[in-house]
């Protein structure tokens, strides 16, 4: 099979503009007769469903949540990027494009990323018009801050709840279309299979999670906006119910996964506290604007801290190793996530971790509090040598900027981060890999589109902070309404798809058989225990650093675990009822296969790039060593069940950016 990315001809700057003015459209009278299924109502899905509804398509939107507003996007904290250059600090569409390609370690598609940077500016306008209460300056204009891996301030934010406010904006637009009847909303419905007719995506099988009934839903095209698969690691910053099932069911029907091993490990999360732990909590990257990362220089201080005889505030300035500032003076604490995470792992592996498990470093706000406090005292004409006063004023500024994050930290850990530095450690956060899509965001299955985190498209081997929200909304509001045109304009004569087609029958039966099988095993172990074990294998061998030997071991382990799963899992309750255990069981079954594919992908990529760090390929200083001559391609995998998956390569051509060793020094 030949993979065609369908990148339009012309210069980088012209591609999208020309595409938009020449792409085939569907006339309004035809739109009314065309049905589109959108699975997922996160930023990508809600914005797509609303925009397609506005255009006049008949949309059916699905979510397994009880309301579209609960999608995992709601939890995004830090912000959303846009090349507005409101800060007048030299930002531009080109710079955002460049930063994203470089940040992704040169493993993304130029044309897609450029388009993303171009539409980023429209997103902010749209969100403001919807009533998103972004942070503002005293003059009433929008305020920006910085995120990692860049040297401009282009991140728009709404306190520490940017994702919530953006999703509520999209949800409200979606709600408006629901009230107008253009979008039909199916809450508490989980897609469990994709239906293909004559090779085209024509519908889904969904389980009504309240009644347990399997339902058939047909449409002219299917859009998946079902989020990322970080929960394959069991512990991650993702919401508990995030899963890969929709995408993986599509893979079973012939769609292909691209770069599945590209996982983002976020450097600033609250460390694991015990075996019962169900998830990890992110402390937003925005904190690295003001927080300084360090560990003690001396082992005896580390010991003292672990034993509780020393407190971090007792450790003198000269006895602290601000290792990011030391190693990466140009970017300091704001190096990209992959770099910051690996550096934290290294100091902890060297024995400098500051909690009992040795897996934590400090994120310290004392200098920021002092700096802000002094500046406030100065502004208000107060005594800037009064330490207590300065502290109080400084804490107030920090509270305004990060109050909810500090509060969240204190709720979870029981310690006050204004008084003592936060303890943080890297955790699984985001998956750059996903369904392979072309420039139209269409998978290799005609009529099947993938949006948001569930596709692989824009972030290469590492995503920059505040770019996922941008991508989700770009895909949904500004890209798919155009790029679905080429497919749907060929379908205007296709009558409504009927759910009594044999393909629906087959898919429904297959889904039922799969669920029946899970229910009938009646083994001795809980789904949760299997998921936890799978997560540990993935984290140990396919996590922050990987090597061939470990990956081979992991593949064997996962295969064995999968076999055991299908023999020994126990799913209580009934199929014809509300049954969260059954939902989980079907999702974990899919994670077990995806995990293996991630390992195969990591094994194939004999280089280190972005979040993918192969120990065999590093510089003497321990930095990632890319191999552009042999690996400047997207790995696109055709899953073949128990046989080896087949690899297709989409070569990446860089015509506008010169490939360089990524340096943040």
């Amino acid at each position, binding site marked *: 099979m030949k993979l065609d990315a369908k990148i339009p001809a012309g210069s980088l700057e012209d591609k999208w503009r020309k595409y938009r003015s020449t792409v085939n459209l569907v006339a309004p009278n035809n739109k009314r007769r065309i049905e589109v299924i959108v699975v997922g109502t996160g930023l990508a899905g809600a914005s797509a469903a609303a925009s397609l509804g506005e255009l006049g398509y008949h949309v059916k939107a699905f979510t397994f949540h009880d309301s579209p507003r*609960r999608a995992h996007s709601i939890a995004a904290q830090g912000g959303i990027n846009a090349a507005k250059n409101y800060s007048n600090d030299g930002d531009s569409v080109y710079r955002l494009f460049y930063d994203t390609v470089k940040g992704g370690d040169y493993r993304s598609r130029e044309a897609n990323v450029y388009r993303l940077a171009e539409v980023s500016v*429209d997103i902010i306008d749209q969100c*403001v*018009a919807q009533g998103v209460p972004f942070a503002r300056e005293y*003059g009433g204009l929008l305020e920006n801050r910085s995120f990692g891996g860049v040297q401009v301030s282009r991140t728009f934010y709404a306190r520490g709840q940017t994702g919530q406010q953006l999703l509520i904006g999209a949800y409200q637009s979606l709600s408006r279309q629901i009230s107008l009847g253009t979008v039909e909303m199916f809450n508490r419905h989980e897609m469990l299979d994709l239906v293909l007719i004559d090779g085209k995506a024509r519908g889904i099988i969904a389980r009504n999670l309240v009644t347990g009934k399997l339902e058939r839903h047909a449409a002219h095209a299917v859009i998946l906006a079902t989020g990322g698969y970080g929960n394959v690691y069991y512990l991650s910053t993702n919401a508990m119910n995030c899963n890969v099932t929709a995408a993986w069911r599509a893979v079973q029907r012939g769609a292909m996964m691209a770069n599945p091993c590209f996982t983002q490990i976020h450097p600033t999360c609250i460390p694991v506290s015990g075996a019962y732990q169900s998830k990890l909590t992110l402390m937003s990257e925005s904190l690295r604007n003001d927080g300084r990362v360090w560990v003690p220089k001396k082992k005896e201080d580390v010991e003292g801290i672990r034993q509780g005889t020393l407190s971090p505030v007792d450790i003198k300035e000269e006895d602290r190793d601000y290792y990011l500032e030391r190693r990466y003076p140009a970017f300091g604490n704001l190096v990209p996530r992959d770099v910051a995470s690996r550096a934290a792992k290294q100091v902890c592996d060297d024995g400098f971790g500051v909690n009992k498990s040795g897996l934590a470093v400090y994120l310290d706000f004392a200098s920021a509090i002092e700096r802000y406090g002094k500046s406030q005292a100065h502004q208000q004409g107060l005594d800037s040598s009064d330490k207590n006063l300065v502290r109080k004023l400084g804490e107030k500024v920090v509270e305004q900027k990060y109050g909810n994050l500090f509060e969240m930290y204190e709720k979870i850990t029981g310690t006050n981060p204004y008084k003592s530095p936060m303890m943080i450690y890297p955790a699984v956060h985001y998956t750059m890999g996903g369904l392979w899509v072309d420039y139209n965001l269409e998978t290799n299955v005609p009529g099947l589109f993938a949006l948001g985190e569930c596709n692989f498209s824009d972030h290469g081997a590492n995503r920059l902070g505040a770019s996922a929200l941008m991508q989700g909304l770009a895909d949904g509001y500004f890209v798919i309404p155009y790029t679905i045109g080429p497919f749907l304009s060929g379908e205007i004569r296709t009558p409504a798809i009927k759910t009594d087609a044999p393909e629906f029958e087959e898919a429904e039966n297959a889904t039922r058989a799969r669920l029946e099988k899970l229910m009938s095993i009646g083994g001795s172990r809980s789904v949760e225990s299997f998921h936890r074990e799978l997560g540990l294998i993935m984290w140990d061998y396919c996590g922050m650093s990987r090597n061939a030997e470990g990956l081979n071991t992991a593949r064997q382990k996962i295969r064995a675990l999968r076999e055991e799963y299908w023999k020994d899992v126990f799913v209580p309750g009934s199929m014809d009822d509300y049954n969260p255990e059954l939902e989980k069981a079907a999702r974990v079954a899919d994670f077990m296969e995806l995990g293996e594919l991630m390992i195969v992908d990591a094994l194939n990529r004999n280089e280190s790039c972005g979040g993918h760090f192969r120990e065999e390929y590093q510089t003497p200083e321990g930095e990632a060593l890319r191999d552009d001559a042999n690996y400047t391609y997207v790995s696109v995998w055709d899953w073949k069940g128990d046989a080896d998956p087949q690899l297709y390569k989409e070569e990446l051509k860089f015509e506008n950016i010169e490939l360089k060793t990524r340096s943040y020094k």
Partner: protein
Amino acid sequence: MKLTLKIWRQKSAQTKGAFESYQVDANEHMSFLEMLDVLNEGLVEKRQEPVAFEHDCREGICGTCNLVINGRPHGPLPGTTTCQLHMRHFKEGETIVIEPYRAQAFPVIKDLVVDRSPLDRIIQSGGFISVNTGQAPDGNAIPIEKDVASRAFDAAACIGCGACVAACPNGSAMLFTSAKVSHLALLPQGEVEHNRRVVSMVHQMDKEGFGMCSNIKACEVECPKEISVTNIARMNRQYFSAMIGSDEK
């Protein structure tokens, strides 16, 4: 720490429910939901059906978790969702009563899971700004006073959890609805259609079977996002002025 849990079990909306008692061994670092995970894993091991409860983000932002703990929606702490509540706030040997929201408009689906879709329908009735994708002017075209944006944010912080309804003896959804009305009405973008919005949302609220507001203010006390009852006053004012000025009486 050893705890006794009295948990409401109910098979479906059609069947009657009852409390059942369980023993669980927790530790103080666990979150409340992790404590329930431990209970559930134990039940599964004993081949019994686990307790159904809803949750997702476990960070206090998605609004999915919704337990009534010892009679209080989201438990004893102010400004805290169930998922953010940690076991260090409970005592060794304590008995904890866990129930679903009790409100006419929120029927039980199973055990501790209720149907909160009426809240979605209130938003669908008008809780939005009518702007299509691509119609927006530049984001900085209309400056908004920092303080105004900040107040709009305070109202927009509502997570749609429905605790305000569960807390209210009348089962009223005034706090939820007024938070949305305020968020949008405070901003210049939303002000344009605020008359239509407030009338339509209030009517939908009544249609869904939510009770009247009689100024008890339990909603504000239990709201995990500390949404203020001043929003209710604002909504009432806007509603009356819209009704006087409108012809859709």
